[in-house]
């Protein structure tokens, strides 16, 4: 099937305005008759639930943490982009649009990206109005910084805790609606299935994580804003509870999964210290504004104290390879460059898997006090984890899985191919193409939540009868029974392996074979190993306790079981995509100098996969991508 993204046509600058005007409206008096199920209340879901509640819809919202304020959006450090052009440095909506298309290596839809750039400015205004304490200069104006991959200063920030402050802004708006009664919030509740009736999404099946109760919630539309899936690599910068579960359950009920192989590896994370490691901590890439990446030129210097390696014996590899972007080269490029230095035997720290990020030059230029003001909390965090002082000796960094550009396929209205199922934020595949630029995910989450879904969901709801669902529908019982049966089966296995052991093994397979660099051979290895691990899980896992109680092992087991299925799709997508683009690097497809080599003739499309059964060959659908405004060109950061 050739998929249609339903992008509006005509001059790009007019597309969103025209589309918004063309969308049908729901009569204000009727809005409260429509119930919207919002799964996930991070930036995307929190903003959406608040805005829909405010419009008068009846919203039920769900999250797995004990409060919406804890969604993993909270961890974003660096900042959020907007095309305000306050610094007068040549930025514009068009430039943000252009940079995002190019940064995504020409694998995103133009119209979606345009809309994102257009509403970016509203987001900043909205957050300021909510009381988000963005950084200000001494005159009281909003401050900006430049961020990976951009040559203009368009990033707004709140110290090193931008995500926290934006999320708390959305959480406050959401709290206001909860108090007003327009949103009913269900904390510690995990979605374990999507309910589809006659081909239309009408509800979800959840597990109350405190009591273990399994029940269904029905509505006129279901939105998933459940975040990204890079915990498929086990170690990542995501929170422990981040999973593909909501997306995967929806996929198994018919929603297409788009571009699962587009995963982003972040260049600056604190290196792993041992097998006990449970997660990796990101150090904001804003550090690359002042930090210089280097490794020793000579292998024998790698064991030395970094301050004992003379200047002439240091290889500032990013500055050398990418003179015009230097240390600010985009993430995928910076990550692969770090790996290349380590593969060459010139890495530092445990296992030789690390590069230095050195602030000595910046401290000399602007003083230690200024660096502290800019990144104090990051230096503190680094010291807590490593016991090393980043002001006195260079930090050690290594790339780690960080962000999922892939996600459920959605059209321009953020609706999946299953009518009534909308997908927002990192959970969808839409705007970042094959690589996301820094400070653009927060922007997307809030754009989707505050300024896109409130319009587009109206267009859908206006066309359907409200309340057209019932808990008595046989599909509801079927879904609940399936969830029960799945849990029962897990408890019945009583095997010898813990969930974590199998999860770690999966992570190792994925990181080694489907991580920063992929080849047909490595992907085939992964595709052979994953089903074995899945079998091991379903025959030999041991989960104690029972389902009718607070049981974190059970929660974890459910998520790992879904990763064990999803990992296969991700690897398959990577194998089929015979090109390198953005975060997807196939070693067979590279330029003589090691740069990624795209294949626009064969792969200038979105790959959207249809589920056909566990272990069965999924069916590939394509959505061709057209570039009418940005010239399809080789991405160069030299």
């Amino acid at each position, binding site marked *: 099937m050739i998929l249609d993204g339903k992008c509006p046509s005509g001059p790009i600058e007019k597309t969103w305005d025209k589309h918004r005007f063309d969308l049908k409206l729901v009569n204000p008096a009727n809005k409260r008759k429509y119930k919207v199920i919002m799964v996930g209340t991070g930036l995307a879901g929190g903003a959406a639930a608040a805005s829909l509640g405010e419009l008068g819809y009846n919203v039920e919202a769900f999250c797995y943490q004990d409060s919406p304020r804890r969604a993993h959006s909270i961890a974003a450090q660096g900042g959020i982009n907007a095309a305000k052009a306050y610094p007068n440095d040549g930025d514009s909506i068009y430039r943000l649009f252009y940079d995002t298309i190019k940064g995504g290596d020409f694998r995103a839809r133009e119209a979606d990206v345009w809309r994102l750039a257009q509403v970016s400015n509203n987001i900043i205004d909205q957050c300021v109005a909510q009381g988000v304490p963005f950084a200000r200069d001494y005159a009281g104006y909003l401050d900006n910084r430049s961020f990976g991959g951009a040559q203009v200063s368009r990033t707004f920030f709140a110290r090193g*805790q931008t995500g926290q402050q934006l999320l708390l802004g959305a959480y406050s708006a959401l709290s206001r609606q909860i108090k007003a009664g327009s949103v009913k919030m269900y904390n510690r509740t995990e979605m374990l299935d999507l309910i589809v009736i006659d081909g239309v999404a009408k509800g979800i099946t959840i597990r109350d994580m405190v009591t273990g109760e399994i029940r269904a919630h029905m509505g006129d539309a279901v939105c998933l804003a459940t975040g990204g899936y890079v915990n498929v690599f086990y170690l990542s910068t995501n929170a422990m509870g981040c999973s593909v579960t909501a997306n995967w359950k929806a996929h198994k009920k018919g929603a297409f999964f788009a571009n699962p192989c587009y995963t982003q590896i972040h260049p600056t994370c604190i290196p792993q210290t041992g097998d006990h490691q*449970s997660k990796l901590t990101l150090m904001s890439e804003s550090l690359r504004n002042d930090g210089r990446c280097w490794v020793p030129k000579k292998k024998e210097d790698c064991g030395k104290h970094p301050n004992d390696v003379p200047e002439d014996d240091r290889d500032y590899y990013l500055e050398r390879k990418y003179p015009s972007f230097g240390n600010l080269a985009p993430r995928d490029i910076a990550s692969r460059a770090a790996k290349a230095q380590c593969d060459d035997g010139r890495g530092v720290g445990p296992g030789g898997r690390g590069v230095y990020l050195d602030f000595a030059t910046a401290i000399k230029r602007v003083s230690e006090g200024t660096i502290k003001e800019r990144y104090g909390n990051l230096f503190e965090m680094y010291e807590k984890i490593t016991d090393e002082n980043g002001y006195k000796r260079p930090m050690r960094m290594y790339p780690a899985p960080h962000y999922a550009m892939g996600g459920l396929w959605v059209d321009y209205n953020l609706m999946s191919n299953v009518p009534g199922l909308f997908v927002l934020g990192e959970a969808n595949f839409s705007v970042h193409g094959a690589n996301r630029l820094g400070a653009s995910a927060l922007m997307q989450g809030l754009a989707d939540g505050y300024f896109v879904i409130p319009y587009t969901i109206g267009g859908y709801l206006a066309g359907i009868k409200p309340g057209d669902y019932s808990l008595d529908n046989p599909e509801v019982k079927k879904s609940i029974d399936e969830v029960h049966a799945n849990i029962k089966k897990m408890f019945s296995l009583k095997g010898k392996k813990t969930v974590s052991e199998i999860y770690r093994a999966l992570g190792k397979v994925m990181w080694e074979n489907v991580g920063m660099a992929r080849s047909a051979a490595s992907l085939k290895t992964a595709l052979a190993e994953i089903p074995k691990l899945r079998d091991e899980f379903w025959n030999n896992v041991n989960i104690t306790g029972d389902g009718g109680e607070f049981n974190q092992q059970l929660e974890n087991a459910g998520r790992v079981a879904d990763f064990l299925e999803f990992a296969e799709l991700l690897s398959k997508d990577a194998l089929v995509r015979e090109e390198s683009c953005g975060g997807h690097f196939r070693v067979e497809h590279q330029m003589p100098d090691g740069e990624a080599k795209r294949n626009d003739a064969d792969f200038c499309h979105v790959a959207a996969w249809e589920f056909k059964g566990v272990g069965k060959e999924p069916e590939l659908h394509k959505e061709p991508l057209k570039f009418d405004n940005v010239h399809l060109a080789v991405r160069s950061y030299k």
Partner: protein
Amino acid sequence: MSDHNSNTMNLTLQVWRQKGPNAPGKLETYEAKHVSPDMSFLEMLDEVNETLIKKGVDPIAFDHDCREGICGMCSQVVNGVPHGGQDRTTVCQLHMRSFKDGDTIFIEPWRARAFPVIKDLAVDRSALDTIIQAGGYVSCHTGGVADGNAILIPKPEADYAMDAAECIGCGACVAGCPNGSAMLFTSAKVAQLAVLPQGKAEAATRVNAMTEALKECGFGNCTNHYECQASCPKGINVKFIAKLNREYLKAIAN
């Protein structure tokens, strides 16, 4: 290689186990063996849980998510101190290098009337959400707001607001307070919004509603022990409590 300490240690844990909110709880003893100093406190507990599962014992339940000190989900009293007492550090950021071989470590949940135990070390903190719902927001609509630079905010005020806004909502201040008061948590939000021009219009109703909610949720009164600040992993300052009191007086004077 870096000069990391690779000596492992053996520890004895005394962990609070409680099946559910109404079940009795007690301390159980567990051994944590071959603990690397580079492990985080929660990674140490992960390893203990792995050995428990292998023995068929129900693992220790504890809340956590980001494991980088920002989500506020982790919540353990370690050796009598919320988050373990290391300066500006959540328990998920506490590393084992601050313990030594042979140590006995006591691990308990937040204890406060407003935070019933769910299981073992996990407690119910929804009362903190209730306080925010009472008024911890600016009542602006989505869309139709002024340009971000339309109202200038002097840097000292923006910085003051940010200092207060760093609160992660963990509840350690409540656990550390002899009265189980949530004053520090509440004052941080009140102060953030009271200092910003955007929040000023509702300052009086906000402080009234939020302090009212504090009482209704079963939190104790603040009697200036300042244990909250000592327990707070984000260094939230008790000066915000003074600010709340001023805002409160202003509100009732009007």
